């Protein structure tokens, strides 16, 4: 049982790290603000979500697991709002001179 849980953790966390890697590459390589934001939010939402999912079987009790999920939801909220704000700012022509 614990072996199964460990395999699940390793798979999910590795997949999450792949999305972080892809997101970082995208952030460095994509041509403009909106596509870079797109790459960044993939890392935040999917990558971090997979890492949290992978860590869930390792949490000692239900409360810690719930805390992990709440952290993920808060990061989602903050990340989504921040990228919306940056996108809005960028579409209005960048920083004031």
């Amino acid at each position, binding site marked *: 049982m614990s072996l199964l849980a460990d395999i699940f953790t390793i798979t999910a966390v590795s997949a999450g790290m792949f999305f972080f890697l892809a997101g970082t590459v995208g952030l460095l390589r994509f041509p403009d603000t909106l596509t870079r934001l797109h790459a960044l939010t993939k890392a935040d939402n999917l990558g971090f979500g997979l890492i949290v999912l992978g860590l869930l079987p390792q949490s000692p009790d239900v409360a810690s697991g719930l805390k992990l999920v709440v952290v993920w939801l*808060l990061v989602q*909220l*903050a990340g*989504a*709002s921040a990228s*919306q*704000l940056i996108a*809005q700012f960028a579409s*209005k022509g960048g920083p004031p001179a």
Partner: protein
Amino acid sequence: MSLLPDLALVLLILIAAVWTVSARDRRDSVIGFIVVGLLLSLAWIRLNSVDVALTEAAVGGGATGLLLLRACARLGPIEAEGVKPQVPLRILTGVLCSVVAAALAAVVLFPIEPAPTLAPAAAAHMGEIGLGNPVTVVLLAYRALDTLLEKVVLVLALIGVWALTPDPLWGGAPGSLRAQQSSGPLTFLAQVLPPIGVVIGVYLIWNGADRPGGTFQGGTVLAAMWLLVMMADLREPPEIRLHKLRLLVVLGPMVFLTVGFAGFWIADGFLSYPSGFAKPIIVLVEAALALSIAVILGMLVAGPAARPPR
């Protein structure tokens, strides 16, 4: 095993620090400072100092960064481009920095064995005070005077900022914190996040008695929620002449001072607690302090009055 991530973290901190110092633009430099603060909080977690990590993230990265960004916006760009300090001054700065670096290196490379520590002495009396978090015990029992003065300094800082108010505007409200144009996502965030953030702030304060957390971390989270609401233009900053506001600013230090002087009658002297009642008194002081810290930080970021009193 864990050496590699630690080395990577140290390298990142060094890179961010060098970038912060060498950035040409003031705002770039402040953003670098915020990054250094967040990386440092990770380093504190690696050192098992969760209390310090929380404070560094909330105050070093968050609140100070926001204050500095506001100051940048007020100061405008650096105009004296290319003006460098005189050579003797630069040499002196280099020499003094090298001395500090060499002293630090000496301390790290040739540690005293056994390292001097007060940890056993601090742990010995924790049972009498009834708190489980040694950091809170040190801050509010053993070194309560330091903590009291720290909070008084915050009040003085706010008075300093308010003193910059031009005479005709005295007593009025600070300028609005909102962005140039209203923004849907920001309004949404400012409506959804504060209830959660207030719970987390109160939790940090309450938790500080037995586990990592405390007044400064919790108070900063509360201040951040208030600032978010002000930035989204859901609430205006209050007028600085309001008695209620001023009362909240001095509430924490006042409660702390009252408890301190009461120590002469109910315990052994200034800032000492009667045995058996230490924990409830400390929790009361912490709650009052956190409220004051939240209000002071919010008003520090809002800045001096910019509108005449109504």
